[in-house]
């Protein structure tokens, strides 16, 4: 292979950036677990994790007890616990696929973030580049494609466990994925139409193009509230969050697809679920909430230099964190659907609604673009 210094440097930098990004998302996933415990405790009038602390930190005057009360070290303790637990493999499982399933669940969640723009870098000569690992022309399709592969982790876990309840969980998961993927794709079509109207010159299939178009006009959640609603509901279903957590509903399936999993293998499933939520929230932010631009209709109030990029990234992260809170809030507010209700909602309500929404925006966009077309 031809590996000169330049190629090596390029590959090395990409590798480093990818590692940083994985680190950031995994940290966020770990802390959303903590957020889930704290928010649920808060909603139920409890305290939540408030004992874990690193040695000697509690002796720092005011800060120590405060950090302890926040439970800020809890994710560390949880991770260690998963690592040091006894590794139990039930005798009746299909070993190869049993070990593969958690990885298959985690990898797509981490792969989707390669095409996720989270900010803007302003160069000294006035140019600006989006902060993104790979600015793919068909970024959204990439996200849809890769996230649809995530279901195989659950299906594999259900099948290889060789046991009734995980199996049912796997089947439910695949049925749910097929049903809601359709609504999700259809809810994005009006967005593509809106962004790539004649003369805009933006590529609607890349997330950077969508964010740029929102900076020019306004947030897409204001222009297309129905698309945003359908996308959000489908996102809940695709991330297996309550009220759609059919594959692991404890009341009727024991533990669902991960009934037979313990120790670190269960930990990977757990982290994968939260990584899905983090990446899903970030995608929703980029598509419907204006990305790293702070207000609808208003140009960014910050200067176009390093400070501006930092504030932009901060703005993106704030919106993402608020959406993660929304995910948690819904989980501890709404009861779980019954399985037939999930299917009914997907096929009878969401799919026709998404189709009507699409036809409406087809007519609207063609009507709005009429003067341009006659010229």
């Amino acid at each position: 292979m031809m590996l000169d210094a330049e190629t090596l440097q390029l590959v090395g930098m990409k590798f480093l950036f990818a590692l940083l990004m994985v680190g950031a998302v995994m940290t966020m996933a770990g802390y959303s677990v903590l957020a889930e415990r704290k928010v649920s405790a808060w909603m139920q009038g409890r305290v939540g994790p408030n004992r874990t602390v690193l040695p000697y930190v509690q002796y720092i005057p005011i800060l120590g007890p405060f950090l302890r009360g926040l439970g800020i070290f809890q994710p560390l303790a949880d991770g260690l616990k998963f690592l040091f637990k006894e590794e139990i493999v039930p005798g009746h499982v299909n070993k190869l696929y049993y070990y593969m399933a958690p990885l298959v669940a985690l990898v797509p969640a981490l792969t989707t973030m390669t095409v996720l723009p989270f900010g803007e870098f302003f160069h000294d000569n006035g140019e600006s580049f989006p902060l993104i690992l790979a600015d793919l022309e068909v970024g959204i399709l990439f996200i849809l494609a890769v996230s649809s592969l995530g279901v195989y982790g659950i299906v594999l876990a259900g099948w290889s466990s060789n046991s009734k309840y995980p199996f049912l969980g796997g089947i439910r998961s695949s049925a749910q994925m097929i049903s809601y993927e359709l609504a999700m794709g259809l809810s994005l079509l009006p967005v593509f139409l809106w962004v790539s109207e004649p003369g805009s010159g933006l590529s609607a299939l890349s997330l950077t193009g969508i964010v740029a178009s929102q900076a020019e006009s306004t947030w897409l959640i204001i222009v297309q509230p129905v698309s945003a609603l359908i996308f959000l509901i489908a996102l809940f279903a695709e991330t297996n969050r309550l009220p759609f957590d059919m594959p692991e509903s404890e009341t009727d399936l024991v533990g669902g697809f991960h009934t037979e999993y313990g120790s670190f293998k269960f930990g990977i499933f757990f982290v994968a679920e939260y990584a899905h939520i983090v990446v899903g929230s970030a995608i929703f932010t980029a598509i419907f909430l204006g990305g790293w631009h702070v207000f609808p209709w208003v140009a960014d109030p910050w200067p176009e230099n390093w400070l501006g990029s930092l504030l932009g990234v901060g703005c993106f992260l704030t919106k993402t964190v608020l959406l993660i809170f929304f995910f948690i809030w819904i989980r501890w507010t709404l009861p779980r659907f019954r399985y037939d209700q999930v299917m009914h909602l997907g096929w009878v309500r969401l799919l026709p609604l998404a189709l009507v929404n699409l036809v409406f925006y087809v007519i609207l966009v063609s009507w709005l673009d009429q003067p341009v077309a006659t010229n």
Partner: protein
Amino acid sequence: MNMVDFLFYVFATLSVGGGLLMVFSRHPVPAALFMIVSMVGVAALFVILEAFFLAILQVLVYAGAVMVLFLFIIMLLDVGPEGGKAWRVKFLSGFMGIVFVGLLVLSLLDIGLDRSSSLAWPALEEGVMVNGESLVFSASVKNFGYGLFAKYMLPLQVSGFLLLAAMVGVIILSKKSSASEEV
């Protein structure tokens, strides 16, 4: 051997190996999984050819949707090892496989295995096909769209109509069987 060649051999091995393992696995669930591996390998080959759109469609439609349905049906029917494979079906599929490999070899012989000519061929031919229209042969999504909805509108409509007919047929067949069960 440069980077692209190396990656080509990696992903070609992945797709062909996945296909072989699919054919030779005894249980249908691993077979379906190997088919997914093979499809992802083909998608990676599309990426090497810089046809990102095709690559993503390959993953989105086949690996992401069709194979989920396959797995769903396999699991729902609980097909065991060697389930549902009569020897006649085996013979027919083997025969068809040999026929298709033969056709592939014939077509390869026709265009020639010379690398430079096989790479240059599509762009040239496309230019003749487009013939005056403003279609440029490229892998970008916009050109796919213009091609599909302008030049190839009629074939697109016809294939859509065929799919619609197939769908109506499936609905009629499944309705019939459930009605006869009720009686």
